[in-house]
C-alpha cells in the first residue's frame, strides 16, 4: 500500500484510539456517580454525617464527611492503579517517573491538588444537593481546560472544535438547569454550588496541567503519581487538620472495613481509576480540549446510570441537554484528522 495512505490511516487510527479512550472515560465516569452517591448512606459515613450534623451543624457535616469519603476514594483508586501498572509491567516506569520530581512528578503533584479539589467538590455537591446535580455541575470543565491549554501551551483548537465544545457546554447548562431546579428545595444551596464550582475548575485546570505533564511522562505511571499525591495530601495534611479541629475523623475511618462499604469503595475505585486511565490516555492522542469534550459525555451517562440504579426519571431539559452533548461530541469526532501530526501550534 502507498506510504501516504498508510500514514493517513495511522493518524486516523491514533485519533480513533484517542476518541475511544475518551468515550470509555465518559462511560466509567458516569458510572462512578452510582457508588459516589451510595457511599453517603453506607456505614460509617451515614452515622458520621448525622453525628457531626448534631454537634456542629449540617454544613460542617457535609464538609467533613465528604473529606473522609474523598480520602477513601483516592486510596481505592491508588490500589486499582497499582494493580493496573503491575498488570501492564509499568512498575519500572512508575519508579523512573516518580524519582524525577523536579522535572516531572511536580506536574502530576499539581494535577493531584486540582483533582483533589474536583473530587472533593463533587462529593460535597452530591451530598448537599444530589447525585444528579453533582454529575452535571462539572460539565463546564472542558471550557476551562481547553482555554488554559490554548493560552498556556498553544494547543490547537479548530473552529469545528470550538463549535463542538460550545454545543456540549450548552447541553451541560441545560442538564444543569433541569437537575438544579428539580433537586433543589428551599433556599440557595451555597455549599453545594461551591462544590459544583470546585469540580468544574478543579477538573479543567487538572486537565490542562496533565496535558503539560504528559509531555514528559507516560500516562499510566503519571496518573498513578497524581493519585498518590492526592492520597498523600488527604492522609498527611487534610485529615489530620480535620482531626486537630476536633472532628472524629479517625474514629469513623477505622469503621470503614465492612463488606458493603468496601464493596462500594472498590466499585468507586475501579470506575474512577479506569475513567482516569482512559482520560489521561486520550490527551496525548486528541488533545486536552477534545479529550475533555468527549469525556464530558459523562454528564449524560451519569444521569442515565443514576436513573437506572437509583431511580428518578430524567427531565426533558436533561434529555435535551444530553442530545446537545452527544451532537457536540460528534461534531468534534467528525473532524478530519488525517493530516494532523502535532496537536500544538499553528
Amino acid at each position, binding site marked *: *500500500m502507498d*506510504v501516504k495512505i*498508510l*500514514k493517513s490511516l*495511522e493518524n486516523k487510527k*491514533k485519533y480513533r484510539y484517542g476518541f475511544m479512550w475518551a468515550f470509555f472515560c465518559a462511560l466509567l465516569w458516569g458510572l462512578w456517580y452510582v457508588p459516589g452517591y451510595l457511599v453517603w448512606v453506607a456505614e460509617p459515613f451515614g452515622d458520621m454525617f448525622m453525628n457531626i450534623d448534631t454537634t456542629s451543624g449540617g454544613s460542617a457535616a457535609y464538609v467533613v464527611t465528604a473529606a473522609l469519603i474523598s480520602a477513601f476514594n483516592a486510596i481505592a483508586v491508588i490500589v486499582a492503579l497499582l494493580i493496573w501498572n503491575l498488570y501492564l*509491567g*509499568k512498575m*519500572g*516506569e512508575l519508579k*523512573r*517517573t516518580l*524519582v*524525577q520530581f523536579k*522535572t*516531572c512528578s511536580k506536574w502530576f503533584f499539581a494535577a493531584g491538588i486540582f483533582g483533589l479539589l474536583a473530587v472533593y467538590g463533587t462529593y460535597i455537591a452530591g451530598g448537599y444537593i444530589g447525585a444528579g446535580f453533582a454529575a452535571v455541575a462539572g460539565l463546564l470543565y472542558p471550557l476551562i481546560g481547553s482555554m488554559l491549554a490554548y493560552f498556556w501551551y498553544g494547543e490547537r483548537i479548530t473552529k469545528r472544535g470550538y463549535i463542538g465544545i460550545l454545543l456540549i457546554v450548552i447541553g451541560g447548562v441545560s442538564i444543569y438547569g433541569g437537575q438544579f431546579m428539580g433537586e433543589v428545595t428551599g433556599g440557595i444551596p451555597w455549599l453545594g454550588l461551591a462544590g459544583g464550582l470546585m469540580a468544574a475548575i478543579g477538573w479543567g485546570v487538572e486537565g490542562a496541567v496533565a496535558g503539560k505533564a*504528559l*509531555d*514528559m*511522562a*507516560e500516562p499510566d*505511571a503519571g496518573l498513578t503519581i497524581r493519585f498518590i499525591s492526592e492520597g498523600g495530601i488527604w492522609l498527611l495534611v487534610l485529615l489530620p487538620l480535620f482531626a486537630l479541629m476536633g472532628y472524629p475523623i479517625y474514629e469513623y475511618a477505622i469503621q470503614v472495613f465492612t463488606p458493603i462499604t468496601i464493596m462500594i469503595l472498590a466499585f468507586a475505585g475501579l470506575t474512577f481509576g479506569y475513567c482516569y486511565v482512559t482520560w489521561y490516555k486520550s490527551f*496525548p*492522542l486528541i*488533545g486536552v480540549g477534545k479529550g475533555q469534550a468527549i469525556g464530558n459525555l459523562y454528564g449524560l451517562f451519569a444521569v442515565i446510570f443514576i436513573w437506572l440504579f437509583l431511580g428518578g426519571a430524567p427531565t426533558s431539559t436533561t434529555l435535551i441537554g444530553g442530545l446537545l452533548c452527544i451532537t457536540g461530541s460528534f461534531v468534534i469526532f467528525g473532524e478530519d484528522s488525517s493530516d494532523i*501530526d*502535532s*496537536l*500544538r*501550534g499553528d
Partner: protein
Amino acid sequence: MATLPIKFQIIKTLLDGGEHWNYNIVPPIQKACSMESNYGRDTINFDLLELLSAGMIEDLEQQVDEDGVFKKDFLLHKYRITDFGREWAEAMKLSEED
C-alpha cells in the same frame, strides 16, 4: 540513562540533532528498561507517537517495513527533534552526556 522515564530517554537519543528511524531509537531503550518483548517495543513506539503529538519531535519520512526489521507491514518513521523539543530538553536540564 535507564533511570530516566522513557520519554526523556527518547529525547536524549534525538538531542544529537540527527535523523533517526524508530527501529534505531526503540531497541536500546527496550534493553535499558528490560522491556524486550513485542509489547515493550509497542509501548515505547507509542511514546514516540505521543511526543510527536506534543510537537517535540517531527516525522520526516515513512517507509513500509516489508522486511520486518521492526514490525512487519507497519510503517517505519524517521524522526528528528524540533526546536520546541530542544527547548523542553533544556528546561528539563537534559543533555546528551547525561
